[in-house]
Structures are given as C-alpha cells and as structure tokens.
C-alpha cells in the first residue's frame, strides 16, 4: 500500500508544485491511512451483513431477507437509526473519561488491522515483530473499558467494566502462550514469514490443533461475543459498560466490536489456517474467504449458546485453557526439536 499511496502523493504534490520531501512522506501516510479506513469500513459493513443474514436464518427473522434486494438495506437501516439519536452525556459523568475512552478504544481497534497483512503485497505495515505488536494493541482495551465504566457514573457500568477487564485479563494469558507456540514453530514474529512457513511445510492447525482450539475460545472471549458476553450482559446489566453511551457513540462501539472480530479472525487465519495460501484464486481472495469462514463460525456459536456466568468464564480461562495452552507449547517445542517441521 505504501507504493501506491506514494505514487498518488507525489502526483498530487507535483501538480501543486510543492517540493518538501517531508511533506511528501506525510501525505503518503495520510493517503495510506485513509485507504485503510475505507477498507476497514467496507469490511465491517460486509461483516455485519453476513452476521445479520446468518442469524436471521438461525432465528427465523424476516428483516434481513425482506429489507431491500436480498436484505442489503438492513445495514443502512440500523446505521441510520443510530445516526438520528441524540448523544447524551450523563450529568455527573466525567466528561474527559467518557469521551476520551471512546477515542482510545476505537483507535486501538483500528490500529490492530493496520499491522495485519492481507496479502503478500497488500499491507499497511509489516513490522518484524508484528505478532507481538498486534497483541500489545489488543491489550490496550481493558484499561480504557474500566475507565469508561467508571466514568459513566452508573453502578451497572462500573460492574460491567470490572467484569470486562477481569475477563480480558484472564484470557490474554492462554492467548499469548498459544501465539508464542506458533512463533516457536515458525521461528519468526513476522506475519508474512509465518504464512510463508505454512506454505512451505504444513498448515499449523494440524500439529498445533490444541492451540487452535485454545486460540478460538480465547479470541471469542477477547472480542466479547456470546457465549462470553457477560460484560455486555443485556439481561443483567442493561448493557454493561456501554450503557450510558448513546447515538453515534454507541454505533462506534458496535463498529469496534466488528473491527476486533475481523482482526481476531484475520490473525487466526494467518497463524493457523495458512493465511493466503490456495490453489487457483489470487492470494487476497483466499484470505477473505478464510476470514469470512471463521467469522461465520463465530456467528454460528453466537446463535446457539447461552451466556456463561462471570465466575465460570474466569474458571474456564484459568483452569481449563491455561493448562491446555501449556501442553500445546510443549508439543510445539517437541515438533521443533525433532525437526519434523
């Protein structure tokens, strides 16, 4: 993406007869960022459409199939509803905490997609420690969530913030241990190199199957989807830490949820499912096919299971997933040492 935006930027600056190299560099990155945002938004819209259609099939709802041709306008109906609502700041809420945490959460979620490459030639940036960077950014959210819950001046939001932070903290550990096992086998933290490794040898879902399962469960908990939905538990806490946010702010939180789903599914595909490898079609098409398949699995799970209680969520994280992740890392070490992979 850098080269394309570089060409566009130089073309614009030449047309305007300005000649600062620093400006050239900045404008390149600005155009690249705008392109990234457009891609993310298009992806999110398609993801929401996929989720509505699939849930509509499961739950026998009529909306997604009747509104517009093949239900395309359902998305716009939802977005429009959010846009016309009033944005409320509660009276005793801390304005700075309330608004700034929104910005932090949205920005950090968009940032994850920036470090995840989508094809060998199509990435925003591809750092050498891309894997660690992605998970470090993933982990910014719990801080902002607990501040948002506290800043809302609402007992329910506070409880929701606590639950969310506890859940995310306890699922970070098995997640990161699994990721380390992948990096151990592949020998690198760079996403593109991990995919190249999988193309050369075998998709890592085979040998590290336990790790795949742990990663799947932990990423669903990180994204706060049902069944690990307790911070957002509608039946108990109205809407958890997001309760007091109204209108466009709430729409932005929903957007973040889908962006993180996309990022989580993309990382899972890159680490375990072979990234962009596939027979006939170009790499980027295979990447998107796999990401949407993983996302369909997330929606399927959402449609079928009830919500897990918060102390049971933490039980699963610490007592079931952590030992499995440790077993997985031992298996990965054995595979690496014996030279099979």
């Amino acid at each position, binding site marked *: 993406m850098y080269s394309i935006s570089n060409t566009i930027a130089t073309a614009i600056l030449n047309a305007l007869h300005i000649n600062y190299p620093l400006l050239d560099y900045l404008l390149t990155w600005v155009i690249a960022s705008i392109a990234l945002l457009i891609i993310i938004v298009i992806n999110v819209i398609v993801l929401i459409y996929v989720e509505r259609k699939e849930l509509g099939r499961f*739950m026998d709802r009529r909306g997604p199939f009747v509104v517009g041709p093949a239900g395309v306008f359902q998305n716009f109906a939802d977005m429009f509803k959010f846009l016309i609502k009033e944005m409320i700041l509660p009276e005793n809420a801390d304005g700075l905490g309330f608004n700034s945490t929104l910005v932090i959460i949205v920005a950090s979620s968009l940032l994850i997609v920036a470090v995840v490459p989508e094809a060998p030639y199509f990435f925003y940036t591809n750092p050498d420690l891309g894997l660690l960077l992605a998970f470090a950014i993933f982990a910014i959210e719990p801080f902002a969530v607990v501040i948002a819950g506290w800043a809302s001046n609402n*007992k329910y939001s506070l409880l929701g913030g606590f639950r969310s932070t506890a859940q995310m903290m306890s699922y970070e550990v098995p997640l990161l241990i699994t990721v380390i096992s992948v990096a151990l086998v592949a020998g690198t933290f760079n996403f593109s190199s991990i995919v190249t490794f999988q193309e050369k040898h075998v998709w890592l879902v085979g040998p590290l199957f336990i790790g795949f399962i742990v990663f799947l469960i932990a990423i669903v908990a990180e994204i706060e989807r049902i*069944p690990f939905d307790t911070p957002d538990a*509608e039946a*108990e806490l109205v809407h958890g830490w997001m309760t007091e946010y109204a209108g466009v702010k709430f729409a932005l939180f929903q957007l973040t949820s889908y962006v993180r789903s996309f990022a989580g599914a993309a990382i899972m595909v890159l680490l375990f499912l072979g990234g962009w490898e596939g027979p006939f079609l170009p790499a980027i098409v295979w990447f998107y096919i796999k990401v949407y398949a993983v996302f369909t699995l997330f929606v399927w799970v959402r*449609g079928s299971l*009830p*919500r*897990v*209680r918060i102390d049971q969520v933490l039980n699963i994280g610490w007592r079931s997933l952590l030992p499995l992740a440790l077993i997985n890392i031992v298996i990965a070490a054995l595979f690496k040492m014996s030279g099979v992979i």
Partner: protein
Amino acid sequence: MAEMWINMGPQHPFTHGLWTLRVKVDGETIVDAEPIIGYLHRGFEKLCENRTYPQIIPICDRLCYVAAMSWDHVYVSAVENMLDLEVPLRAEYIRVIALEIQRIASHLVWLSSFMTDLGNLTAFLYAMREREMFIDLLQALCGARMTYNYPRIGGLSQDMPRDFPQQCLKILDLFERRLKEYEYLIEESEVFRIRTQGVGYLSPSDAINLGVTGPALRGSGVPVDLRKTDPYSAYPDFDFEVCVEKDCDVYARYRVRINEMYESCKIIRQALKKMPPGPVLGKVPHHYPKGEGYARTEDPRGEAFFYVQGDGTDRPYRVKIRSPIFVTVSAAPKMLKGYKVADVPSIMGSLDMCLGESDR
C-alpha cells in the same frame, strides 16, 4: 467491599413486568433480597364489586394475560360452586382442551423469556413461533388471541368449529416433534447446564411452608398437582402423569415445565377422542342468591384460587383472588441467598413471573 443494596428494577431488561428486586450484595454474593411489587395494582377486587357477575369474566383475562384462559375458568368455577350449577359434559371437555392449550402457550412464553435471560436468543424466537400455532388455535375457538372471554357461568359461550379436532391434532404432532428438537438444542450445551444446575436450591419443606405451588414445588420433589390431588372439571376422566423432579434447582423446574408440555399434548389428544356430543351452555342463572363459593385450579404457575361472596344482588360483595406468583415471589429471597448476582435472572426466570396476577 462493604455490603451494599443494589436496586434491580423497576425498569430492567430481565424483569418481565414491572417490579423491583433489592438485593444486598457482598462483592458478587447475595446476602439478602427484598422484592417490591405493586406497580401494576389496579384494585381488581374492588372493581369487581361494581360489576355484575357476567361482566367480571372479560376483566379476569387481564389478571394474568399470558395464561388468561385459566383465570376465566377459575372465576367461572367459583361462581358455579356458589350456585351449585351443573355444567354440561361437553363444555367441561372443551374447557379442558382450552386450558391445556393455554398451558402449553404459557410455558412457551416462559421458555422464550427464560432463554433470553440466559443469553440464547435463538430459543426465544423458536418458542414464540410455536406459540403462534397455539394462539391461532385459540383464536379459532373463541375469536381472540390473548384476552379470551370464552367461558360463561354455566358453560361456554360457543361451541368449537367443525374442523377444530383435525387442526388441533396436526398442530400437536408438529409441535411434539419440534419440541424434542429444541430440547436437544438447549440441553446439549454445557453452558446451559452449568448455569442452571445447582442454582436456586429450594428444599421441599421450605417450599411447602412458604406456600410455593406449581412447577416450583414439583421441581423440589413434592408431587402435588391439583389436577390429581383435588380434581376439578373433567380431569378425572383423563390419564396423565404428574411431572416431578427431585433436584430442587433451576434445571429441575425447567424440566418439569417441558414435561408438562408433553403431558398437556397427551391430555388434549384424549379429550378430542372422547368428546361427548351435547349442548355447551347449561341453565344460565338469572338470580344470584346470597352465598359464597370458591374454586381452585392448577394454573400454569401454581395454585390459583378464587373466592366469591354474594349478597343477593346481581353484583358480588367480596371477590378474593389468590395468585400463585404473589406467594412464590415472597419465597424468592430464600432461593437467592448465597448465590451470585449473575444468578438472579436464571433463578427469577425459573419462577415464571407474570406481574398481572401478582399485583391484580
């Protein structure tokens, strides 16, 4: 963290109807609870003192709007006991069919709201879809989907349509197949089991002492079902079982209600087969003498009881309604102590609250 009182309600997504539950929590564990009701109090019993006996039947539906037919039936039975009226046998059979269809519909509403509380939105829509079939049956029978106004003092207002038995049997076959599928969908998930098993313990002696009746009592191992213990209407003619579970927790009450739905299908089939011909309205009284009468039935939620006292005029002097949910909610603190705040929706959901009858 010190103990603090949290107000859950009155406006709260999981409270079906308007009531408040104040819980005293120590961290996440509930130490004490206090339900506050009365937001929907309409002064029903005083309202009845200004209406003639037949005029009370339409407003009895509004007592518990989810199980309206059984409240109509209780009131009409109480007045018939007061007057010693003989109800024709065909009317009794059709009343039983309507009651059992209403029981299935009411339990389906319970299922959908219970699963919504737990987070499974799919079961909510599935149960509502099945309920549509039964509401359509009741609409064929009496013309209304929710507030029926169907029984009359001395029988029923109209006979059933000619093709009602075939329609009914078709729907029952379809429903039993689908209910098996939904049972499997819900119970196979470990998440459902860990949220409902071991939660909300209510011992049998506590249940009997606190006046709890209905599925909550049968889920604690006490096989008291008023259709067998104290039979009324045409129930002695039918062969069905009392659904009892021994575990005393939320899962047991869930299983009791699912089994009751199957038993209701059995009863409807037997009633349709044995239906006697004849009139559906007996002798309609014109003069209501001084006296009193009472009747109790097995509402989908417990023991519904109606006491009517007449003073010789055409309006009653005193009407008293005992609602099962009023008493079960007062027993709720016993079931909540020691569990977590996150268990409140599943425990209160298993009691199947309908505020209309509780507040009258």
